[in-house]
Structures are given as structure tokens and as C-alpha cells.
């Protein structure tokens, strides 16, 4: 403790939010659901950094009491485990469950509405459902609604019930999933896959080029939907939504997607393509006129990895960052906690151009900053193309895409997308074991095939137990 009191506070860099906190918490509780393949966000302890929630306040009160603030990151990391131990037996949100149990069960120790639900099955008779176990008839109805968009008929349900065995019914369910996943409802224009893609692509009708052209046609985002749908269907690797160096053409009546090496609506050369991160729409809308397109980086981080920096998620601070090459003031204490992650995440976009003259628009332009932005700030041309994602240095955006696509975060995010679509909500704490098993199979056993992931989700109790 004495050492702590004597540590020069200059070393603390005066940071108030503590991005190392998530890693320290996970080192102490590695089996906690919040730590399996991810880390808790700042919101676990903070309302908005530096303001703490009830749990964070209790931890803070036990974190080197009396020591001058702020603590250095090193001291903070060293002392946090003991402070966490000190509050394990408390119930800071007053929901009747101790903090330790909440950490272990994946609920929030600062939110009284979030607590483990031990729901015993009543087991009484129910003429329509088997409420205590996986109900194949219930699952069949849901599969047809979720994948085909319509309920089974009375005759179809009778035929399903008349199948000789549960194994036969399960095999039939699998076949129905595959049949329905080929329908317009699932993969056609504005179908279910497109709905999954909307928040990733973030279309704007007035800027649409080509089919359904808007008033100010700038780019055709239907290409983005086509690549997304292609990577999520058939025996295809979903990671290619981030890594593809090809495009996908969509044909209609019925909808068909086919892989192509070029499209007239796309301009980035093959050597610099990174799936839906470098399409004409992505560069138009997320890069626009920006020298350092932090918006593009944070959107891809949010859309494809499920990490929203605005919610203090996925913070992996890089030492000596942010450098603030574009003189936006992001090195200020209030900004640095996030920008130490976000800025190095954004550097690989430095040569991807957004809206500009026809000659340069939505292309990879070597020396883009030097050509178009050199007068914006004294050090702006020093923005490197090398960046950092998940603490891993990458040479360029394709390297960024590779690390992102291979990460647990990508598998978790993709699985969450379809879990929400099919189960109807993000995984709940009592569904966590099934969820973790499902995303791990998606990553390890299925090699990122969404079609197989869909079958796995349908087989979960979260989906099939009424």
C-alpha cells in the first residue's frame, strides 16, 4: 500500500475509465458467462465512466481505500481482484442475489431486474405443448414460421405427428429448415437474411443507386446485401462477409446469388477488398469525406463483432494511443479511454476513399491522406496504415478483416444475430450454456457455416421447449 501511495501519479495518465478492468475481472472469474469469449463492458461497473453504478461504487470503496486517485492502470489491475473479493458477499442491487452469484450466473450485479431465474418446470398436463421438454410439434410450427414465413396447416401437423418416430421427425425438421432457407421469405429481397443485414449495412433510400434509385444516387447497397446473403447460405464461410475479394450478383424471380469477380457498381481493386467493409456503399456512407474514418471502424466493430465502442464495449487500449494525428482533441482525458482503442482500429482505412471526385470515389487510393487531406492538421500525413485490433497489430484492412473474422467476437456476434432472429431475444443468462456451446460449434465444428448454425439453434432448448 505504501508503494501505491508513493507512485507518481503522472504515470497514471490521469485516465478515469479503466479499460483493463474487464480483463482483470475475467482473469479472476474466467468461467463467468460475461468472460467466455468476451469481456464485460465498462457498463458492468459504470453508468457512464467515470460515474459508477452501485456495484462499481462498492468495488471502488474497497479499492485501496484512502489512496490518492486516480490509480495507475498497473496499481488498479493489481488491486482490483481483492476489491472484487471484498464485495462478493454483498448484494449491491438488492435483488436478493449476492454479487458473486450474479457474476457466476451471468446476470448484472448492479441491476435489480437482472437476476438468475430458477424456473422449475411444473410438469402438469397441457393438451397442446410438452412444457417440460423439447416439443417437436412446437418446434415444427416455429420452424415453418421462422424460415418459411407461414404456419403449417392442420394436415401438415397431422402428417408430422404421424411420422413413425421422433428420430424421423427430427430428420424431417432438418429437411424443412433446408427447404425453407431456400425460399424468398428467408433469402429474397427484404427477407429474413436482409433483415439481419439492415443494421450492418444501414441503407439510406435517398442515396440508393441502381434498382430503387433514390434522389441522390451515390452507391448501390443491394450489392452489400447480396454478399451478405451469399456468405450466410449454402456451404459457405460466413467470415467472407469481411474477407471476400469478390462480389455477388443478385438475380430475381426467383432470387439467385452468384459470385463474380467484378461489378460495375464497385470500384475497389481486388487486392484491397475486404468484403462488406470496402464496398462502394460502405465507403460512401461510413467514410464519406473523412480523413481518418473512425465511423467506418466503429460501425464494422459494432456490426460484425457485436462490440459497440459507444457503449464502452470491446475496449483494448493500445499503449501511446490515441496519437490524435488529425488534431481532433481525442487525446483529452474524457476521450482517450475509448480512442486508445478506436483510433488504432481506424488507421487501416486511411487509404480507402469515400465521397469525392469520380476519379477517386470509393476506391483504394495510395497516399490518400497526402493527396487530399494534408492541410487538415500538421501531423495528419503520419497516420499509419498499420493498425491494431484486439491488441493484435495488423498491416492493413485486409489484415484487420482476417483477425476480426477469426475472432471469438465474430462467432459470438453471428450466433447472436441468428439467436435473436430465431429465439426472439438475445441469449439470457439461463440460456448461456447452450449459447456458448452453439457459437463454439459454429466456429470450431462447422467452420462458420450459418446453415449448420441454424440447425443447431433449432435443436436448443431455448428454441424448442415451450
Amino acid at each position, binding site marked *: 500500500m505504501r508503494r501505491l501511495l508513493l507512485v507518481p501519479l503522472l504515470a497514471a495518465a490521469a485516465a478515469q475509465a479503466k479499460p483493463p478492468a474487464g480483463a482483470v475481472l475475467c482473469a479472476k472469474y474466467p468461467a463467468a458467462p460475461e468472460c467466455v469469449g468476451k469481456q464485460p463492458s465498462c457498463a458492468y461497473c459504470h453508468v457512464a465512466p467515470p460515474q459508477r453504478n452501485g456495484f462499481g461504487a462498492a468495488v471502488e470503496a474497497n479499492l485501496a481505500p484512502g489512496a490518492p486517485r486516480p490509480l495507475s492502470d498497473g496499481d488498479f489491475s493489481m488491486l482490483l481482484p481483492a476489491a472484487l473479493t471484498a464485495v462478493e458477499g454483498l448484494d449491491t442491487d438488492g435483488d436478493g442475489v449476492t454479487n458473486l452469484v450474479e457474476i457466476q450466473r451471468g446476470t448484472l450485479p448492479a441491476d435489480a431486474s437482472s437476476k438468475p431465474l430458477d*424456473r*422449475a*418446470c*411444473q*410438469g*402438469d*398436463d*397441457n*393438451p*397442446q*405443448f410438452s*412444457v*417440460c421438454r423439447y416439443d417437436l410439434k412446437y418446434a415444427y*410450427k*416455429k420452424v415453418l*414460421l421462422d424460415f418459411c*414465413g*407461414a*404456419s*403449417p*396447416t*392442420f394436415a*401438415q*401437423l397431422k402428417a408430422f405427428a404421424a411420422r413413425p418416430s421422433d428420430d424421423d421427425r427430427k430428420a424431417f425438421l432438418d429437411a424443412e429448415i433446408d427447404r425453407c432457407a431456400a425460399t424468398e*421469405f428467408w433469402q429474397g429481397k427484404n427477407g429474413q437474411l436482409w*433483415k439481419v443485414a*439492415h*443494421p450492418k449495412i*444501414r*441503407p*439510406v*433510400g435517398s442515396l*440508393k443507386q441502381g434498382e*430503387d434509385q433514390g434522389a441522390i444516387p451515390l452507391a448501390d447497397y443491394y450489392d452489400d446485401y447480396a454478399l451478405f446473403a451469399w456468405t450466410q447460405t449454402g456451404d459457405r464461410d460466413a467470415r467472407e462477409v469481411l474477407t471476400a475479394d469478390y462480389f455477388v450478383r443478385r438475380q430475381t424471380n426467383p432470387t439467385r446469388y452468384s459470385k463474380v469477380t467484378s461489378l460495375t457498381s464497385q470500384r475497389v481493386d481486388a487486392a484491397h477488398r475486404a468484403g462488406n467493409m470496402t464496398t462502394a456503399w460502405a465507403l460512401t456512407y461510413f467514410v464519406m469525406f473523412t480523413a481518418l474514418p473512425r465511423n467506418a471502424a466503429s460501425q464494422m466493430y459494432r456490426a460484425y463483432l457485436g462490440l459497440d465502442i459507444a457503449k464502452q464495449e470491446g475496449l483494448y487500449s493500445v499503449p501511446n494511443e490515441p496519437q490524435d494525428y488529425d488534431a481532433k482533441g481525442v487525446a483529452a482525458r474524457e476521450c482517450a479511454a475509448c480512442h486508445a482503442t478506436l483510433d488504432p482500429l481506424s488507421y487501416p482505412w486511411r487509404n480507402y476513399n469515400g465521397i469525392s471526385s469520380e476519379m477517386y470515389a470509393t476506391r483504394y487510393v495510395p497516399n490518400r491522406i497526402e493527396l487530399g487531406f494534408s492541410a487538415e492538421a500538421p501531423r495528419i500525413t503520419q497516420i499509419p496504415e498499420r493498425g491494431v485490433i484486439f491488441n493484435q497489430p495488423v498491416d492493413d484492412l485486409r489484415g484487420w478483416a482476417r483477425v476480426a473474422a477469426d475472432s471469438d467476437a465474430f462467432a459470438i456476434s453471428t450466433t447472436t444475430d441468428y439467436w435473436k432472429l430465431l*429465439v*426472439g*431475444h438475445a441469449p439470457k443468462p439461463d440460456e448461456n450454456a447452450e449459447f456458448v456451446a452453439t457459437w463454439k460449434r459454429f466456429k470450431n465444428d462447422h467452420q462458420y457455416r450459418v446453415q449448420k448454425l441454424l440447425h443447431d439453434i433449432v435443436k436448443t432448448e*431455448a428454441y424448442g*421447449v*415451450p
Partner: protein
Amino acid sequence: MFRNALMTLSVVTAGCFCAPPAPPPPPQVMESPDAGVGASARGNLRFKGPERLVNDVAAALELRADQVCTELGQYQCASLVHNVALGGVDPYGPGLYEPSGITAVTTPLVVDRVALSACTRRVDADLATPQSAVVFRGVPLNGKKLANPDGSELPAVIGELTRRVLAREPYDREVSRYVQLARELDASPEAEPARAWMQAVCFAVVSSTESVFY
């Protein structure tokens, strides 16, 4: 030749009008569950939303999807006018990329609107061409009234409707309730009790919780 053809046509046509359409098969009425029914541990009911709702109503009542409900006779209720109220998205205009995830205050109103519109269309069609009636077939009428509210035809069409919309046989409580409704409408000053009963029963089943959630 022409005369013979005309006579043949007359016989065929007359035959169509003379033979009443067969009612649906009688339902295998199920005993209503008592209050002790096993409760779901998860309670994960999901609202069907715009596409599934319209697809199911259209299939059950044998309407085209674009016939289910329109505003001002031309704008689709579910896919356009009330899409967001039904839990849909509107990504290209206002930038509503994800559904709200909850049903809104106006959602039940729109569900009722869709159900009533579809049922009205089905009943109108069945009454206009009873020989090709889809749901309300074989129901004897006495002018604008049901000829026999206590006859076997009503449970038959209740069964047909329940099988089509809910994919199950009706409960005895449902049959007795809807038959009672027929008696009450028959005794009321309602101008067209038969039509009113058909619309009301159809609306009750199509807009039920069991029909719009899954």
C-alpha cells in the same frame, strides 16, 4: 344444336343451384382444458409480425396476400401502412433497421383491422357464391338469417375455421360459445344476422392470441 347446348347448360346451371354445398366434416371437438393446465417455464411467446400474420391469414382464408387488408382500397395494411406497428422494419426511409422488439399500443388495433378486413372479404365471397364457399359452406340460410342456429352445420364450419386458422380441432367451450353467439344474433335486431355471425366468429378466431402469437 344451339338449342340442345342451351338446354344442357340450363340443366348444369340449374343443377349447381339446386344441390346445396356440403358442409365441412364435423369437428372432433376436444374437451376444454381446465384451469390446471401446465404452464410454460419459458413463456417465450412471439408476435408473428407483418409478413407471417398476413401469410397465415391469407392461407387460412384462401385469399391472396394482397387481398387480406388494404387502406383506401390500394395501400397494403401490413407491408406498408401499418408495417412498423406490426413489428416490421423500415430501413430505407426513416432508417428503422431493427424491429422494436415489443408490440406497440396500436398493434392490437392493426391486428383487429387486418383480421376484420380479411374476414369480411372471406364472408362476402362465401355468401356471394355459396357453391364455391371456402369456410362458411353448407350453412342453410333463411333470408338474411341462419336457418337453424342449433343445427350441425355451425359446429362444422367452426371446426373448419379452427382447423384452418389454429391448425387444431375446436374445444367444446369454443363451439358452444360461438353457437350461443349465433342464437343471440338471431334474436337481435341485427339486419343480417347470418353475415354478422360469420364475420364475428371469423374475427374472434383470426384475432385470437393463439392465432397471432407463436
